[in-house]
């Protein structure tokens, strides 16, 4: 019997923290992020209502139908009710997933923008590196044999390839605000993961595969990139940052980097 109020109190406390948003998402920095948050809130409201009423009902039957000397009602069930709650949950759950498909499709299935700024990621135990093609718009050839992390060549850039002469390699990600970006993801050893909370985007970086990820960030700022796929003992400190810059600053940064090379 005491169980009923305990379930109710737990339910109210949990609901309170979901409404107070004490620990919550950082603000979104893209149109996708805003759409993501809307889908999250839709799901939260629906599951929240089910959660509240299911737990409340459980507490209620525990309280109401405790053994107080009555005889239990003899019933093997009710097909009408079975049909109602089966169809209701089916419609609700499938409906919910269908409303979310637009968001998924926008990230992974829509026609990519041919003018997207290409940036390559190379991940390894336990660092990310980023490469920009330079003014010629072409990435130079790479070779695993030329990889030299100590000398600042994590990609294994081939100096004999003219296309690679102007490539920029950076330990952190810089992107122009409001421009479509194409990330081309590579891993040199095990599986890593690219995650920016503010973008509401995540993608495994799988060795042997080239995985593209398109996005656009609108709000300038510096955002952390935590590796989010277990990659070994240094997983917890595999960190980089993404700086979203006004386009002019981004162009200037590229020029500076090229000059420093």
């Amino acid at each position, binding site marked *: 019997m005491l169980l009923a109020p305990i379930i109710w109190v737990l339910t109210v406390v949990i609901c309170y923290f979901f409404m107070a948003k004490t620990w919550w998402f950082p603000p979104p920095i893209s149109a996708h992020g805003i759409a993501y948050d809307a889908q999250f809130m839709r799901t939260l409201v629906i599951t929240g209502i089910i959660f509240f009423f299911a737990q409340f009902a459980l507490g209620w039957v525990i309280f109401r139908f405790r053994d107080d000397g009555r005889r*239990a009602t003899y019933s093997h069930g009710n097909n009408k009710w079975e049909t109602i709650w089966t169809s209701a949950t089916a419609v609700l759950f499938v409906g919910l997933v269908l409303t979310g498909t637009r968001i998924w499709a926008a990230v992974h299935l829509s026609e990519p923008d041919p003018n997207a700024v290409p940036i390559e990621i190379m991940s390894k135990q336990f660092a990310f590196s980023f490469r920009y093609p330079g003014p010629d718009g072409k990435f130079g050839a790479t070779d695993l044999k030329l990889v030299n992390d100590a000398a600042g060549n994590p990609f294994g850039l081939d100096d004999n390839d003219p296309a690679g002469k102007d490539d920029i390699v950076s330990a952190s990600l810089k992107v122009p605000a409001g421009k479509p970006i194409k990330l081309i993801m590579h891993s040199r050893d095990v599986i890593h993961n690219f995650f920016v909370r503010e973008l509401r985007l995540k993608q495994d970086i799988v060795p042997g*595969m080239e995985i593209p990820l398109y996005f656009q960030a609108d709000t300038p700022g510096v955002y952390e990139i935590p590796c989010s796929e277990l990659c070994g003992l240094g997983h917890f400190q595999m960190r980089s940052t993404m700086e979203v810059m006004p386009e002019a600053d981004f162009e200037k940064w590229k020029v500076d980097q090229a000059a420093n090379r």
Partner: protein
Amino acid sequence: MHAHHAPQGFIRKYVFSLDHKVIGIQYYFLALFSVLVGMSLSLLMRFHMIHPDAKVGWFATLWPTAAQGGIMTPELYLSLMTMHGTIMVFFVLTTAPQSGFGNYFLPIQIGAEDMAFPVLNMLSFWTTFIALAVMVAAFFVQGGPPLAGWTAYPPLSALANSGPGEGLGQTLWIVSIAIFCGASLMGAINFIATIIDLRCQGMSLMRLPLTCWTWFVTAILGLLGFAVLLAAGVLLILDRSAGTSFFVPGGLMISDQILNHKGGSPLLWQHLFWFFGHPEVYIAILPGMGVTSQLLSTFCRKPIFGYRAMVYAILSIGFLGFMVWGHHMFMSGMSPYSAMAFSVLTMAIGVPSAIKTFNWIGTLWGGKIRFTTAMMFALGFVSLFVTGGLSGIFLGQPALDLYFHDTYFVVGHFHMIMGVAAIFGMFAGTFYWFPKMFGRMMNETLGKIHFYITFVGVYAIFTPMHFLGIAGNPRRYSDFTNFDFLGKLLPVHTFMTHAAYWTAGIQILFFFNLFWSMKYGKKAPMNPWNATTLEWTVSSPPPFDNFGGQHPVVNHGPYEYGVPGAPRDYVMQTDPVDVHAE
């Protein structure tokens, strides 16, 4: 008809026993040992997360290299995490509900003398024992236990130089899992044959207790799932030791060395692993659902609401369980189109789960609830199942998984449902069947104190994980000092760690109750709960061949409580057809 007598020698009676009841208890104690190990590992992990730099003398004694000077290294943390997950999933969640309780009670509940293949049954237990011994051995080898997580994703798990523990430790891990697969396959065949062939007269499929239905479907899941995991394990061993490249692609470089592997696919492992891994979730939880159904009906003195709907829900969970593995791989780089298919199927599996919840509440509705400790745990199961199930609605959507994948939201979700809900099912089963297994009653007062603190405790540990996930906290991080946003979440981790200490501490009460009651508990009558199924028609504990040479005949469904006009408020399955004539 004559009674069979038990073998007299100690070894044949208690060690290499062919009796399904002894084997069930052996499995139960194996799981009990494993859960102690698994729980201790989780406490060490929770300690390290909030005190990453703490110096603890005995850490150095236990792990002279991985905790040199008493400071736990990140790799040791990952090893503890890997072993925690592995031991809990395989040696606790797979072992106790199915092989433990199932072994003991399936034959009695269907009116059989033993399992279909007693020798195979013994073999499957001792094979499981060897698997556990090999797994524990991984703690003590050079390099330490593996650190690739219980999912062992290659290339991390396939390459010996990808980290400490990835040498012999990882090899032992795979060998242990392969042995465990063999044991589970033997067990699955035995369960399926027993339930199909050995039902007594009158025990039609639609008169099976729901516990038997869940053990049956779980066995089928085990047969199909573990076969695939076994194959995947063999391929992974070959990649590690025979130079094959099933899972390792070309063009890799580890510790500045270029590897010779070519042409493998890391995603292949994930497909094979999760083809087993998702049904495994149901292997863990289905028997708990069966026990919960059985107990809710017994202790509210009402027939189960919608027995047929429950059976169909169990069957469809089993069937759909094999079609949703891709929802673990939304972020893996597999085709985004298949993600959409997997997500619709995942939502579909929520429907039979919801049916079960509604039917449980429907069962309680209009009942007269007796609050035994066993019943409390069954009610707790329903609450946890609802909570843990609903967070799945977020994760089943690839769109939302774009953020939640590999965060603490996932950790909170699966601990809530596959971890503690399943464990509540085991607690419920323990308190319910203990009198039958050991002939004595457990202490109800201790049981209730243990229940209340555990119930609030698990909510306190696992609910905050959802908020950490919303804040973006990645899982499998050994400390949180390297990121600005993680530092702010440390108070939540501190709270969870303390909740874990309390909740783990109170389990001492359970262990005390268990062992004390075995010796000093009140003597149990034949049918202490006034229950209807066949195990309550025989003495506590039952005779060697279960029914003393008699062949029971079943005339009624399993949940005939509160039958109007009947002399008692329950009709046992073996009562005469015309109960009013009694």
